[in-house]
């Protein structure tokens, strides 16, 4: 395979891992808990900027052509971990401002506005992250390991894959836990959840924080690879790409974010590259957005549960799951079938 092709494929794989990670975070918020965080992309951006300013070194050392805060030069994985923390704290902070008072649809509107405000602030306040021009020359964390640029991409793909897998595993364990069940209860009926002792606000804040932290990790992974980051990388429409990915893949399931993240942002968006060029130059990119919108509507209309729907949780019968005690050692499932239709008492 030629180096160009290798580069292309490695890039696609890394992008897949980044999108899968982000979609897993969004799944925690939207799929599991039913929180409409339409500012999701700003948490990815927070992670990316955090990694940038913690690894770039001082602005003067790079010739002073870009302005930014901090300017530390910390080794991997410090910027990655810091990105998770910063985005997580930002999540809890913004969550504390909003989830206490606002319910689903109003929260969605407010978060969308917050996303727009964040873009405005970062664009206009140049001293923060170099304004609209954004940050460039962000160092690659493992560049000392190999001199070949294709080799580097594969190393990075492997690291991103491991981090993505760890995030997926952690999210999966949470989804399958009693906490995950309580989060789904909040999604289904917050009043009933509160009436059963669930602190709905605290649970929503928790997923705001965790989802934010995971988005931050995805941003950190992305920016260490692309080496550049600017407000145009995280316009609010990117949030809807992730929502589309999650809805297409399947909300609330473990595999849904993986399937959706590969299909929508990677295959669908990348596929447009292979369309023959026609019409004005902006036509094909615009069609890409139209395609994403059409796919979103089609799924919401025809397959709202997505390609991999949330599974029905069936607990193993008592006889299998616990050490046999004489009166308990029975197969309720079989017994249940026998009972069906008859009064039980």
């Amino acid at each position, binding site marked *: 395979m030629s180096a160009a092709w290798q580069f292309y494929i490695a890039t696609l794989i890394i992008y897949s891992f980044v999108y899968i990670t982000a979609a897993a975070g969004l799944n925690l918020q939207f799929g599991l808990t039913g929180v409409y965080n339409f500012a999701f992309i700003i948490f990815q951006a927070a992670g990316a900027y955090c990694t940038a300013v913690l690894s770039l070194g001082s602005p003067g050392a790079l010739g002073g052509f870009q302005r930014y805060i901090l300017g530390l030069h910390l080794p991997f994985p410090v910027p990655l971990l810091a990105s998770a923390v910063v985005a997580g704290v930002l999540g809890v902070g913004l969550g504390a401002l909003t989830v206490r008072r606002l319910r689903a649809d109003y929260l969605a509107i407010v978060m969308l506005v917050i996303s727009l405000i964040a873009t405005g602030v970062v664009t206009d306040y140049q001293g923060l992250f170099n304004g609209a021009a954004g940050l460039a020359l962000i160092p690659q964390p493992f560049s000392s390991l190999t001199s070949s640029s294709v080799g580097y991409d594969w190393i990075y793909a492997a690291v991103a894959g491991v981090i993505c897998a760890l995030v997926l595993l952690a999210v999966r364990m949470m989804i399958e836990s*009693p*906490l995950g069940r309580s989060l789904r*209860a909040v999604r*289904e009926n917050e009043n009933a959840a509160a009436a059963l002792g669930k602190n709905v606000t605290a649970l929503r804040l928790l997923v705001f924080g965790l989802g934010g932290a995971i988005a931050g990790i995805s941003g950190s992974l992305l920016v260490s690879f692309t080496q550049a980051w600017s407000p145009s990388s995280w316009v609010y429409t990117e949030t809807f790409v992730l929502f589309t990915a999650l809805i297409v893949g399947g909300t609330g399931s473990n595999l849904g974010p993986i399937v959706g993240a590969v299909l929508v942002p990677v295959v669908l968006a990348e596929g447009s590259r292979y369309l023959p060029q026609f019409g004005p130059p902006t036509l094909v990119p615009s069609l890409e957005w139209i395609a994403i919108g059409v796919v979103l509507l089609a799924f919401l209309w025809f397959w709202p549960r997505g390609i991999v729907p949330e599974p029905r949780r069936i607990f193993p019968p008592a006889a299998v*799951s616990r050490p046999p005690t004489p009166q308990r050692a029975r197969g309720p499932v079989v017994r*249940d079938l026998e009972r069906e239709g008859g009064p039980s008492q």
Partner: protein
Amino acid sequence: MSADGLRLAPDAPLLSVHGISRTFGGVRAVVDISLSAPIGQITGLIGPNGAGKSTTLGIVAGAIRPTAGSIQFAGRDVTKLPSYRRARLGMVRTFQMRGEFDRLTVLENLLVAAPGQLGEKIRNIYSIRRTWRRQQRELVDQARGLLDQFGILSHQNVYAAELSGGQRRLMELARALMAKPRLLLLDEPMAGVSPTLRDRLAEHLRDVADSGIAIVLVEHELQFVEQVCGHVLVLAQGTVIGEGKMSALREQAAVLDAYLTG
């Protein structure tokens, strides 16, 4: 459930509500209502539509803030506590409509209610996985036992959304018991329940009360109220217009008027 841990005078009611009121805009939904619920008894709230029964229940459960009055539970003032804190003290309510977690199975609906689950703490999920999973297996057994009692064990793996109206009531009651309540607040437990289920539900409620739980219920079905409730309060236009035994209330002119004229 016994009343252990309670610091109550021997004959003090578990719940006492003093003079609660609530206005919505200019509408006085509840005006100066007082009631009490002793352990082991079923107290009924009846009255025509719009009498303020559900609002009263909502105030007691903590879903609605009263504009005046106070609520004592187990010797403690809970007037300002949010509903989840009251639930953790053992004040558990059911809903008139839509109380289920639709896309959770019946068994999961019950599991959500179990208090003190180790696996609900995020650090425990990863650190003491075996311990919380063992606890969860025990809770699954408990939940199955309750579902069996209520005759809906065969529906344990069905989504709550797929249950019939009557089965939902049974599930909600089983779920409330799963929460280890000391006080049950039931909002129209008979709504949508078939007449054949009614006697069984009445029997369940009496068993629950006998086990040492106080019950307050709002109900339209007067025969059912007469069947299960020792003490009944009649509400009309937000105030109590009569209270006592159902058989005695039937004779009172004011009560009849309230029902006939709405």
